[in-house]
């Protein structure tokens, strides 16, 4: 019963963390527990009915939240991690409350995935996408791809791998699984005219030849094929057809599962969220949930903080859109630029460890697309001037750029500037700072209360 005692200690730490207001107890108790008992994840997960793990460079938190909505529509009682606490400590913390018969649903950092899967032994593994992200922390994209390949090769034979068929690197990993299926978009009308600059996996993972695309939806995601060796996008089992994006408000599409189809109205905009919804639908499918129930769950989803959540800033509507790497930021910009109005922005660039100390990635983001629509921008964060400079080279008049390194002052300056909604674009740690600030002002609820 030694393990019981360790769990009690960790649970007390979680309660203390919430009571003192220092955090939701989302990582600290797990960290403590894993130090006391390194195989805690496997032991705590044993009573769960089954577990699903979601990983990707972009969209983990949103996908997990959508999947939760889908699984709950299907009647599941969930045990899941919250608020981007997606390293082993976050999973262990979440598992402290695991009960028999619950279904596990965990978003896991792409670099931590191998370790978590080894102890958790998920019944379903969802591989969303791989984009260039924080080279100083994760290393090159190919290295993560290689790690995922070895992970899939070592999975138990009955693990179902659901993979993004439109991502050449991820599909290459996924098709090697003994059991699995792909998901993807089947609507060439939402294709981009050309590939974005930041597109990453442009070369065939088998032969190195440049890939050809019949449609490019986002970054390097699309209908790809290698003209040299015949390697091509595997036909997906879970698809979105007749996709219609309605600015920042919503997206509509027809969801097709092997078991049937249903119309989906997703209450968040952006094509990247259609991919997140497909990943969530794939989880629903793996759980045997019917298309209509999946569609119902997706329709009831509400955005996670920083992922398109709408807030009221003392009477001014504001929208928080996390930007953390070129591919994700480009989709945010593409979605914003689809709304033609002149805009007021607050862009917060931090260079803490969780953001990546190297801020060069902002030069791979197509701020040029948004610059003509920006009336005023307040730049803030530890690298505020760097962000201002980037926007100047993107074509914005230096007079429209205000540098305000302190976040609170920047938020007030943004609120007082221009008109219409205020768009807040923070990097990861800036988003956490922003959230704390908005909780203090009563504009949003603390993250451990907002499920």
């Amino acid at each position, binding site marked *: 019963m030694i393990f019981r005692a360790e769990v009690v200690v960790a649970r007390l730490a979680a309660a203390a963390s919430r009571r003192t207001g220092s955090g939701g107890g989302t990582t600290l108790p797990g960290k403590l527990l894993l130090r006391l008992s390194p195989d805690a994840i496997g032991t705590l997960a044993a009573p769960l009915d089954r577990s699903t793990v979601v990983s990707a460079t972009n969209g983990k938190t949103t996908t997990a939240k959508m999947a939760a909505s889908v699984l709950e529509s299907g009647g599941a009682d969930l045990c899941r991690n919250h608020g981007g606490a997606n390293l082993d400590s976050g999973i262990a913390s979440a598992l402290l409350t695991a009960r028999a018969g619950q279904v596990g649903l965990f978003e896991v950092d792409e670099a931590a995935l191998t370790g978590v899967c080894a102890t958790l032994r998920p019944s379903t593994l969802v591989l969303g996408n791989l984009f*260039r992200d924080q*080279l*100083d922390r994760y290393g*090159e*994209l*190919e290295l993560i791809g290689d790690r995922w390949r070895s992970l899939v090769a070592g999975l138990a034979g009955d693990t179902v791998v659901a993979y993004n068929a439109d991502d050449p690197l991820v599909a290459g990993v996924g098709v090697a699984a003994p059991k699995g299926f792909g998901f993807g978009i089947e609507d060439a009308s939402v294709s981009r005219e050309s590939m974005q*600059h930041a597109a990453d996996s*442009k*070369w065939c993972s088998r032969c*190195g030849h*440049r890939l050809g695309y019949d449609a490019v939806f986002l970054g390097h995601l699309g209908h790809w094929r290698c003209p040299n060796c015949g390697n091509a996008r595997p036909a997906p089992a879970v698809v979105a057809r007749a996709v219609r994006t309605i600015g920042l408000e919503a997206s509509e599409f027809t969801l097709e599962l092997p078991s049937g189809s249903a119309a989906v109205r997703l209450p968040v905009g952006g094509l990247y969220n259609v991919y997140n919804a497909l990943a969530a639908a794939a989880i629903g499918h793996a759980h045997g949930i019917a298309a209509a129930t999946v569609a119902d769950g997706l329709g009831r989803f509400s955005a996670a903080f920083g992922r398109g959540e709408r807030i009221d800033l003392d009477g001014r509507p504001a929208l928080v859109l996390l930007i953390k790497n070129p591919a994700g930021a480009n989709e945010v910009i593409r979605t914003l630029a689809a709304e033609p109005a002149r805009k007021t922005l607050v862009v917060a660039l931090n*260079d803490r460890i969780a953001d990546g*100390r*190297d*801020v*060069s*990635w*902002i*030069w*791979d983001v197509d701020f040029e697309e948004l610059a003509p629509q920006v009336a005023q921008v307040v730049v803030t964060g*530890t*690298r*505020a*001037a*760097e962000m*201002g*400079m*980037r926007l*100047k*080279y993107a074509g914005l008049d*230096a007079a429209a*750029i205000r*540098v305000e390194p302190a976040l609170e002052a920047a938020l007030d300056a943004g609120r007082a500037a221009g008109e219409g909604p205020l768009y807040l674009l923070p990097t990861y740690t800036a988003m956490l700072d922003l959230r704390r600030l908005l909780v203090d002002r009563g504009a949003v609820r603390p993250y451990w209360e907002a499920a």
Partner: protein
Amino acid sequence: MSVTVGHLYPEHLNIYADRGNIAVLRRRCEWRGIEFAVAECGPGDPTPKADLYYLGGGQDRDQVLIADDLLARTADLRTAVGDGAGVLAVCGGYQLLGHGYRGHQGDEMPGTGLVDLTTVAGPTRMIGNITLRCELDPGDQRTLVGFENHAGRTTLGPGVQPLGRVVRGNGNNGDDGGEGVQHGMIIGTYVHGPLLPKNPWLADWLIAAALRRHGDERELEPLDDGLELAAHRTAAAIA
């Protein structure tokens, strides 16, 4: 008068936001009414005529994909440099300026040998903010700031000068205090971030050199560099 940059392998060598360097050269020319053009050059394309050749860094895989093609155009680049053209090479591109790169498994990737330098993979990556002191023109001391992230340890041949002395950071190999290389009009460096936005003096040095090739000896008119210098100061303070 116009400035032409020959951008080598933009599809392969672009890992550290290399296009930021091109954007800075373009804007700083345009703001002064100087015509600016980029000639992109991929594998198999003829080497374009240019005042400055730019070679960025790539993922290991991408660098292997272009290595042979680059070797095949070494003679073209040597001729262009002999004719006064400059070369700016960053990270992986910098390593390819030398004799080659020896990896962890002893695998050898040959370089162009345009400059006498060699690179060997080290046991750890050197990652972090970096500050240098440079003196590209005698008596004109400048600070260069940025970010380095490399496993390669580069050693310069006898008599070959580094781009600058490391004030904070690792530089070429973490031992000899040098960073990068300056060999006539060839500049190589591990500093990205990207390199030029926060170091507008270096961008202007390259533009002025390109103009001189066309017999234009002008002093570049100063620009309002308030944001650039603020970003430079922040980077220098955290290195």
